[in-house]
């Protein structure tokens, strides 16, 4: 027996044991995630409409063809991209800026850390309701009061098509920027200080130190945080549902909300499943792209 073979032979029972130990976990995972996913895909290829009992049938890719010509789906698709892109970009810029700023405060940083946790621990549905009723109600809300006090006038923040989009983007950004802030705070605080000292001796100014030292060093952290934020933004639901319900009309309807409405309000389970499958594919695609960028980094 060659040494390598001997090693493999010795490892075999161990590997078998490892498999046996992992099996229950894997099984639970298959039952709770893989099977429902396969069922979702199976459902997306059927006509299942609870309002039309007796018309259930296999229809292959017809649901997907219908989506191709469904204006409301494409509107939701478009807004999902706008929503995800803008909220993630804003979270990143504001969160990073806050982290850089607060690291320069010599004392009481903990106050900011604790304050930052508050929005994160709130349930999104509470955030949506809180913004809808306390902050944005025309004539009564705090934001509207501020706007009137500043001479900008009262606005229908969740009723006007453009303002409603801005509002739901601001709500999501408000809730999740602190997450990016805390993540960035940790990443920057862990950077070696000698590099910055050397740069200072070389008379690099603050912008250059940020651009050529901080940014490259925290790049992996930025990519991870972007992946995390993207997947959450793509699957956002509760805050929009509570604040606008996708309205006015359908302007703040993201794909997730549309899939929910098709399935549970219109009771068209087959088509709803197809919409959900597309959202799943989109999320996986974005995540895969970003992981690739990360590996190349």
């Amino acid at each position, binding site marked *: 027996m060659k040494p390598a073979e001997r090693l493999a032979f010795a490892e075999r029972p161990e590997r078998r044991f490892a498999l046996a130990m992992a099996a229950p976990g894997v099984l639970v995972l298959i039952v709770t995630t893989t099977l429902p996913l396969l069922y979702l895909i199976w459902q997306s290829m059927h*006509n299942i*409409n*609870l*309002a*039309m*009992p007796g*018309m259930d049938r296999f229809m292959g890719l017809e649901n997907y063809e*219908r989506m191709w010509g469904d204006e409301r789906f494409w509107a939701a698709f478009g807004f999902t991209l706008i929503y995800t892109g803008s909220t993630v970009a804003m979270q990143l810029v504001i969160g990073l800026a806050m982290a850089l700023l607060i690291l320069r405060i010599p004392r009481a940083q903990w106050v900011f850390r604790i304050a930052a946790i508050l929005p994160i621990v709130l349930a999104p549905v509470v955030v949506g309701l809180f913004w*809808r009723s306390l902050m944005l*109600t*025309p*004539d*009564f809300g705090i934001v509207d009061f501020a706007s009137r006090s500043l001479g900008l006038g*009262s606005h*229908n923040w*969740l*009723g*006007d*098509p453009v303002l409603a989009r801005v509002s739901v983007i601001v709500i999501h950004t408000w809730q999740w920027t602190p997450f990016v802030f805390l993540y960035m705070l940790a990443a920057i605080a862990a950077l070696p200080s000698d590099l910055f000292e050397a740069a200072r001796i070389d008379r690099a100014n603050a912008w250059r130190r940020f651009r050529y030292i901080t940014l490259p060093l925290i790049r992996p952290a930025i990519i991870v945080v972007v992946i995390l934020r993207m997947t959450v933004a793509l699957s956002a639901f509760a805050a929009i549902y509570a604040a*606008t*319900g*996708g*309205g*006015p*009309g*359908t*302007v703040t309807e993201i794909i997730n909300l549309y899939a929910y*409405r098709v399935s*549970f*309000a*219109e*009771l*068209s389970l087959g088509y709803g499943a197809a919409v959900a499958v597309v959202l799943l594919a989109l999320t996986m695609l974005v995540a895969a792209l970003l992981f690739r960028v990360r590996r190349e980094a």
Partner: protein
Amino acid sequence: MKTTTEKSAAIDLPRRVAIKHAVALAGAPWVLRHAHAQSMDLGPYQNAKINWRQAEGQTVNVSCISAVYFDNLIALTPEFEALTGIKVRYDKVPPGQIRQKVVLDLSAKTANISTHAADPMYIPLYAANKWTEALEPYLNDSKLTDRAWFKPDDMVEAWRRANMIDGRTYGLPFMGETTIQTYRKDLYDAQGLKPAETFNEIIANAKALHNPAARMWGFCMRGMPGAGQNMYIYPSIFRAYGAKWFDAGGKIQVNSPEALAALEWYVMANNSYAPQAAQNWNWPDIADAFSQGTLASYIDGSSAAPVLTNPDRSKVIGKIGYARWPKGPSGNRVGSIWNWALPINAALPEKARHATWLFIQWACSEETQARTSFKWKGPNKRYDVNRISMWKNPDYLASISTAGHNFINATIDGMTLDSDVDWRPRVPQWPAIGETMAKILQSTLVGQIKPKQALDDAQIQVERIMRGS
């Protein structure tokens, strides 16, 4: 010797106390129920010539919403349990989610929900899928129902008919409401205004009192999108303009000239005289604004009266008047029909279905309606009982007389004269139609799309829904 006893007593004491408590705790529900049962007056129920204990030992699972009428019912449930030996478990679900939650249970046939607070507009869907039972076999079985005692025909007819498909009953109304005008009587009197009799008078009254600079808006209707929100109020206007949901050939029709005129009126009235935020308001928001004294009049359900007369929150107590829905251009007054109905899940075994029926019979009976309303000892009375005879009962009328001027007559007229069962299209596809129309109404209200274009789009979508593709 003494010391030892003392010592052992000292050690034993906590244990003894603990045992005593444990016994008390274990025995408590029985003791309480027993004591309660003795103080309960079950006589009025025992007058019914049925065996209330025929489904003893069964459990009935009820899904309902959080509201005064169900809270009072829940508090009375130990009486039902003592009467029948049936256990009742309640699950409170927010009104926005109860339909979806119930549909999941019914369609999967898991039978976790024996009966629930059902939206009458979902009855066609239930019937088409045979998810819930037709109730005639229960009503007509003398072993299960004493008709002379239960008096099913005493329940408000429009509400009963709203739960019927092809002459068969799929749910009984536990409570109900109708649409009425609510207005500030003090302001109307000061200006010599009368409650509106026509749609034009609504606008004239609103104009006379509309003064947003002084935080007073003239008139308001629901703007929030939803099958039960803006599609609660628009169908009344639609029918009052003489529009019909189905043409002579039975084809659905949402873009007739009358429908367009109705939509234009809705948009004009709300955008001219309601607070801007009302584009996203549901009835609690409207009732709040009215009770804060910022609305001169509105049209919505009669069951908001408890909000308007709540001394902790309302600033307009004693200043409220009510009137019937005004006549539309077609001469019709078309109020809504709303009730929470109780159906029986068809996926239950027979014994459990019988237990569920006994529960429904108990909840909808005159005695329970009385005990949850005017005989109720607590502060929260009901304004929404299900029986015509009760709406003539002086004790009941006295208990709701605090609602304000003319509430009782306006409500009785609303539910007996102004209710139209086909106020909304009663088809299994209603959930999809309601949602689609709701979205389109709100897009029109916020000015994203013109009314004509909106209804033409709606027509295409609604036809697609009816085809099931």
